[in-house]
């Protein structure tokens, strides 16, 4: 990695600026800058506060990682980082335990009822279609990426998944568009993501970077040995661990480690099901076509969001029947109103969670063939620790505090002295991980 800028121009029709940086093996990494944000004249020049006093903060999401998978044997670099910092072993994801809403909660510090992002997939009533929440306009709340930028800090997003890149839009000062995207998974492999992160740090050195590493999740989804030996998953964990280690080594080699805070967590964990443990609400309602015709289903792996589309006058009675029929399925754990889960209207009228070892498959019984899923309560536990070389980080601590994905924004915001957003955070600043 040399990290030098090779191109500061891009023939784009919009007002963004582009910067092409060299990466490992002669490859290049293309960054874009938000409108109004300039690339530094020298890509190696520090941007922001006095380099001698600045704190760099990196939030690194090991997508889909279970806390019990982070072990000295399987993930030695991550385990060592955790041991060297402050660990929150009781940390959990929040409903719906999917990628997009939990990344949004990390960056906003508020629950979906305020952000407008309750799940990966929702039924868009205006468009009359089920779609991913992957548009910048889907996110109604300011994020750390733009709030810090607006107060003079520089921020970056290095997100391996296409839909994450989509929803966070141009909020960061600098962002990487994931590439190459693998077909089917829609994500860039972790080695490319890490190339981009290192290139961004070397090139424009943001004060804060938000990174998603997608391999562990994407491999986990398709690991047919998930209920037993988890062979492919384990290989992905080892590989991703190496990428994280590579980043730490790079920070050390470039003199940034002593000013760095790393917050490492997952957005959700993963649960595997066998092919017979499938719940199809479509199938459950097949004997009641008059009900089925009034319901739209947004399937989110371990959760189904159900939307009443029939006459308003029949809504309450119809939903009560749907609830009763779906709840009777042996694989269904619970059915909640979205308000009970602080999800907001985008989540529809009912939220069904499956039990551990099950999955939803809708709108058809064959729609979801993948063994690894999340979204349901079995996938709430996540790794969550704060480490780094910064003297602000408390070392070797383990805390009982129930950290949540939503705590990232207030915690990072406090490190930069950022005021809470209008209406305050829903999350909690995890101040106990830092020296005051």
């Amino acid at each position, binding site marked *: 990695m040399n990290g030098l800028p090779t191109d500061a121009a891009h023939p784009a029709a919009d007002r963004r600026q582009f910067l092409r940086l060299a990466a490992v093996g002669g490859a290049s990494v293309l960054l874009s800058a938000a409108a109004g944000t300039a690339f530094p004249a020298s890509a190696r020049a520090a941007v922001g506060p006095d380099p001698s006093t600045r704190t760099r903060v990196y939030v690194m999401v090991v997508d889909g990682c279970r806390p019990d998978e982070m072990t000295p044997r399987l993930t030695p670099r991550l385990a060592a980082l955790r041991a060297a910092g402050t660990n929150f*072993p009781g940390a959990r994801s929040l409903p719906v335990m999917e990628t997009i809403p939990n990344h949004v909660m990390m960056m906003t510090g508020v629950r979906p009822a305020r952000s407008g992002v309750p799940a990966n997939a929702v039924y868009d009533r205006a468009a009359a279609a089920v779609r991913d929440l992957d548009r910048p306009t889907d996110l109604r709340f300011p994020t750390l990426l733009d709030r810090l930028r607006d107060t003079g800090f520089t921020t970056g997003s290095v997100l391996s998944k296409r839909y994450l890149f989509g929803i966070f839009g141009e909020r960061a000062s600098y962002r990487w568009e994931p590439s190459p995207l693998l077909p089917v998974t829609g994500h860039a492999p972790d080695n490319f993501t890490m190339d981009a992160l290192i290139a961004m740090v070397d090139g424009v050195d943001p004060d804060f970077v938000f990174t998603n590493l997608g391999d562990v999740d994407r491999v986990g989804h398709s690991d047919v040995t998930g209920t037993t030996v988890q062979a492919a998953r384990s290989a992905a964990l080892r590989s991703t661990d190496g990428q994280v280690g590579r980043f730490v080594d790079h920070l050390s080699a470039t003199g940034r480690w002593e000013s760095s805070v790393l917050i490492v967590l997952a957005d959700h964990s993963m649960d595997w099901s066998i092919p017979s443990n499938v719940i199809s609400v479509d199938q459950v309602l097949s004997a009641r076509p008059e009900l089925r015709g009034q319901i739209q289903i947004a399937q989110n792996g371990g959760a189904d969001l159900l939307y009443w589309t029939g006459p308003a006058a029949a809504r309450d009675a119809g939903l009560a029947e749907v609830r009763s029929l779906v709840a009777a399925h042996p694989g269904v754990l619970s059915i909640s109103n979205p308000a009970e889960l602080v999800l907001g209207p985008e989540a529809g009228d009912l939220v069904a969670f499956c*039990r551990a070892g099950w999955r939803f498959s809708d709108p058809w019984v064959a729609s979801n063939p993948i063994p690894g899923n999340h979204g349901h309560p*079995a996938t709430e536990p996540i790794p969550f620790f704060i480490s780094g070389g910064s003297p602000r980080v408390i070392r070797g601590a383990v805390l*009982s*505090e129930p950290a949540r994905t939503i705590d990232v924004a207030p915690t990072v915001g406090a490190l930069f002295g950022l005021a809470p957003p209008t209406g305050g955070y829903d999350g909690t600043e995890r101040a106990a991980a830092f020296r005051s």
Partner: protein
Amino acid sequence: MTQARDAAGRHPQTGGMSPFNRRDLLRSAGVIAFAGAAATTAHTQPARAAAARPGFAHGVASGDPMPDSVLLWTRVTPTPEAQPGSGVGPDVQVHWEVAEDSGFLRVAARGSVRTGIQRDHTVKVVPTGLRPGTTYWYRFNAAGATSATGRTRTAPAAGAAVDRLRMGVVSCANWQAGYFSAYRYLADRGDLDIVLHLGDYLYEYAPGEYQARDVVVRPHDPAVEMTTLAHYRRRHAQYKTDLDLQALHAAVPFVVTWDDHEFANDAWSGGAENHTEGAEGAWATRRDASKQAYAEWMPVRFEPGGHIYRRFAFGSLASISMLDLRTYRSQQAASVVDPAIGSPARTLTGDAQMEWLLNGFSSPATQWKLIGNPVMIAPVRFPSTLSAREVGAVEQLLGTTTIDGVPYNVDQWDGYTADRSRVIGHLRDNAITDAVFLTGDIHSGWACDVPADPLTYPFNGASVAAELVCTSVTSDNLDDILGSPPRTTSLVVEEAFKAANPHVKYLDFDSHGFSVLEVTPGALRMDWYVLSERTDRAATSRLATSWQVDAGTQSVRRAQ
């Protein structure tokens, strides 16, 4: 009876160096006439003679600590005639005080309460308005006598960060089978926040019915199987004359639950293995009597008509849910192949307690969810490689027949698999982390995973909780039944059990002693201490092994 009380009175001084030990207990009690005698003649003074004097012959105790209160207990003997279970004696006003120092210069609370024959002259008070996470001293005064001074400690404030919780863990203390050295060693430590007693605090048997192998080390009083209220009261009183037990009660607050022997062996909602309906009265009457005596004589927030299952929190570090697995349970299955074992119509916990237990798991307020669990929940299958003699010994230990490959004890959760499935399913479906069952009953030490699915566990090691089982204080175990020296023939049996049950990581079928559990945010560790000889008043103690559960793993591993 005289012989038993002689034995109780002849406890050796231990000379422990902890801040508050048996010697301190006796010294602090010196103002009481009988206890003053005990301090100088403890080796010769019959307990009955001591108890015959006005005063506080049965010591003091505290229990069930909460952030702003803790329950205090004693029993007053206002006149020589007012013996436990006698129904004789005047009402008496008992004064109590709680102080922040052992000299009672900074009194935090004081009051008085009246007691009499209606509660066998026992006293339970709950001072409130105390400060959380604070050590207090307490004592009682009545009829011119002052009790021993007890030390206790309130629980940390709700939600407070707590670095460490350390507790003694004990069960199965049969007076007739030996001396309570385990209690002495716990009392002498001086570093415990609580003592968790998981049941079989006392036994119902008559002398000669259940002891140390064939030897009655010290006979029970009364010299009959306890079946009436007077019997239960006298038996409780006898146990409370043990100076090691008195010392531990006076040094550390207890959190207790009962198992079967507080009532009768293998008790269930409608009877017990060791109850003959009619000949021994009606079960309901006997059960009510035992519960009344328990409420009177134990430092527990339980009164007849209420329920003993309850939950405590220690800041954000841990909660402890204490279960009652006798009051509501269906009758044990007839055998290990009885299909009723899996019937959802049968219950171990009862519906209300089950709902309470499951709801408690889901609270985000505390990290470790500890369960005071009187009988084992981990599935245990009987191995097929044992000799007939070994099989017979295990059957005697369990009190059941055994068949290869099927559950080995239907008095445990293994005999109520529908209820166990609800618990395991709830833990798994909701990904409850850091749940640990702390168990007694089975007179042996175990460290186990609780598999999410026993069929796939050998491949994926998926565990929803850990289970740590303390051994008995004195009650017989496998080597006693086999008649073998400790740690000889039982080793083969233990290896066979572990091979047949790969989630069982540690098993000691022989030793007697106690456990110490240390809970921190990063890990929970249990140390198993074993006694040299339970029938030796001066038994030594040594650390046998330690196993731990790292936070977030739900799995046991040997501590380094």
